[in-house]
């Protein structure tokens, strides 16, 4: 096992990794910009190295500075957290070249999944379901045949397209011919090219993702799914494990597909396969080759410390459990409390004049803020994560409600009031929401 790990990140995730290291008896090195000299991750690590000025490009993204920080502290491995350098294959290469361990997947898998087209081709070949459609241009006859195969509604898109032009939906076979001709005409007018292709159209999909863990001895397990459908501008806001939409059989099925695919790939470490889900079917979006912000909900229902396992498998240890040992217990929800206006989402950096975190049974709070802390304007606006766990989804929602009412973050605007409203919304209580729900809700509420 490693003696000392450098944490190449900041904020709550740097604290999260620091905690896992401490609990494994591993010494830690925090790196930080000049803007983060007073940050919690700097205080709680065993050593801290200032690696550059406030802009992330010159500090948290500064590869030579981070490697040099390992050199002067003797750290043997780097945990990149999420964001910053966590999915940078070149960085993973450099880390390896310097005789250090990158706590994450192999560089080739980061590279493979970082390219949308390569990723889709790879996972499709491995048996993971993707959005069905034509491989390229379609004629009217081909379109009709294919649409019948993949099922309506279908989307006709200009191959040269963009910005929604040359894009038409056919909800039934009757509408197909008209959709094709309109899309072609629009495409011709807009791009001078009337070539169109076809894809399955998802009307109200959910975002469901599967967490996996893999060791270097060929063992891969899945830790079930997370439902992250509540999003605004593609930013996840609220995450649940499990999904209100899946049953145990569906969980096992998609988990099995993903596990077999990644075993075949020879994947290492933690990873997440993200899907759109509609009418009982999964459609691959992308794979994240790193720890996710929302990993705690999975930890809550499985009892598995994902960061600990990341570190263990990076050090060459085997996973200490098999798929059959993993039991899903209860339900967990995470709210991302951002330093933002709760309805306009305008960032609100500044000094936290009052701070009080919720406590009691089933409440986990992951945060790097403290009373008197000044949230700097240079980085993202995630202030803290509230994670609640209970025996079932209904109890979880009630626990979340009481925990939100205990939480105090004063001096800045936060998204707490949004969550206090969401937790009382009938659609949320019923688990009846798609990836479009939150944006629609905000518009209807006049925000």
């Amino acid at each position, binding site marked *: 096992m490693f003696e000392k790990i450098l944490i190449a990140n900041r904020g709550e995730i740097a604290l999260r990794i620091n905690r896992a290291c401490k609990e494994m008896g591993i010494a830690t090195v925090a790196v930080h910009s000049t803007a983060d000299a*007073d940050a919690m991750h700097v205080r709680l690590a065993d050593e801290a190295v*200032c690696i550059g000025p406030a802009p992330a490009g010159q500090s948290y993204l500064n590869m030579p500075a981070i490697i040099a920080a390992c*050199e*002067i502290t003797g750290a043997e491995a780097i945990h990149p957290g999420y964001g910053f350098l966590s999915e940078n294959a070149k960085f993973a290469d450099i880390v390896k070249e*310097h005789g250090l361990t990158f706590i994450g997947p192999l560089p080739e898998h980061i590279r493979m999944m970082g390219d949308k087209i390569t990723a889709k081709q790879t996972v499709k070949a491995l048996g993971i379901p993707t959005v069905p459609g034509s491989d390229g241009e379609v004629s009217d006859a081909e379109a009709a045949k294919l649409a019948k195969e993949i099922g309506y509604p279908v989307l006709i898109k200009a191959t040269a397209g963009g910005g929604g032009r040359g894009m038409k939906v056919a909800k039934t076979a009757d509408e197909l011919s008209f959709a094709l001709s309109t899309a072609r005409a629009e495409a011709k007018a807009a791009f001078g090219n009337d070539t169109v292709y076809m894809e399955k159209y998802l009307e109200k999909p959910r975002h469901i993702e599967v967490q996996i863990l893999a060791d270097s001895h060929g063992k891969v397990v899945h830790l079930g799914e997370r439902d992250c459908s509540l999003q605004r501008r593609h930013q996840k806001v609220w995450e649940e494990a499990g999904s209100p939409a899946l049953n145990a059989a569906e969980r096992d099925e998609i988990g099995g597909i993903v596990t077999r695919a990644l075993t075949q790939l020879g994947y290492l470490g933690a990873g997440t396969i993200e899907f759109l889900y509609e009418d009982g079917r999964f459609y691959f979006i992308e794979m994240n080759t790193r720890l996710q912000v929302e990993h705690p909900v999975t930890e809550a229902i499985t009892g598995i410390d994902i960061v600990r396992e990341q570190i263990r498998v990076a050090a060459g240890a085997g996973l200490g459990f098999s798929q059959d040992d993993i039991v899903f217990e209860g339900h967990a929800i995470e709210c991302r409390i951002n330093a933002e206006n709760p309805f306009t989402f305008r960032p609100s950096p500044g000094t936290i004049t009052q701070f009080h975190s919720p406590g009691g049974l089933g409440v986990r709070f992951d945060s790097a803020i403290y009373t*008197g802390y000044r949230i700097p304007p240079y980085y993202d606006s995630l202030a803290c994560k509230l994670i609640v766990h209970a025996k079932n989804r209904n109890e979880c929602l009630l626990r979340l409600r009481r925990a939100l009412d205990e939480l105090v973050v004063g*001096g800045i605007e936060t998204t707490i009031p949004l969550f206090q409203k969401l937790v009382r919304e009938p659609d949320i209580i019923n688990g009846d929401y798609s990836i479009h729900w939150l944006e629609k809700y905000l518009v209807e509420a006049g925000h």
Partner: protein
Amino acid sequence: MSGKGEKKSSGGKPGIDVNAIRELSDLLNETGLTEIEIEKEGARIRVSRAAVASVAAAAPVASTPAAAAPAAAAPASGPHPGAVPSPMVGTVYLAPEPGKPPFVKAGQTVREGDTLFIVEAMKTMNPIAAPRGGTVQEICVTDGQPVEFGTTLLIIV
């Protein structure tokens, strides 16, 4: 609790009664108070001494010696005006090669652009040039010492 040690916190906003702040600042000095806060015609002013500020702004720390250590590693606030900070993390060398004389010594005059040190990072030797001319008052690092971004290397006056 808010704004301690942040004398300039409202400095950028329009309509600030600068005279009132100056007056309170004088009053602070005169009276020896740590903090004054006044509320007048919808405006609120609070002034405080910097000495209190650094305590209030630091991350909460349990009163154990171990926990205090990392804070000490952070660069000290308010460096000497002639301080030359390290532009990078790495290991600093005072001479071009082991056994050779150092690039510069205390008391020596340097010109802008003269090489002062080498900082090794990622197996690369990076010469550190003098940002301005002057007399070397003090060398603040020793040969082979690890330095952070911003560590004071030497003082040129």
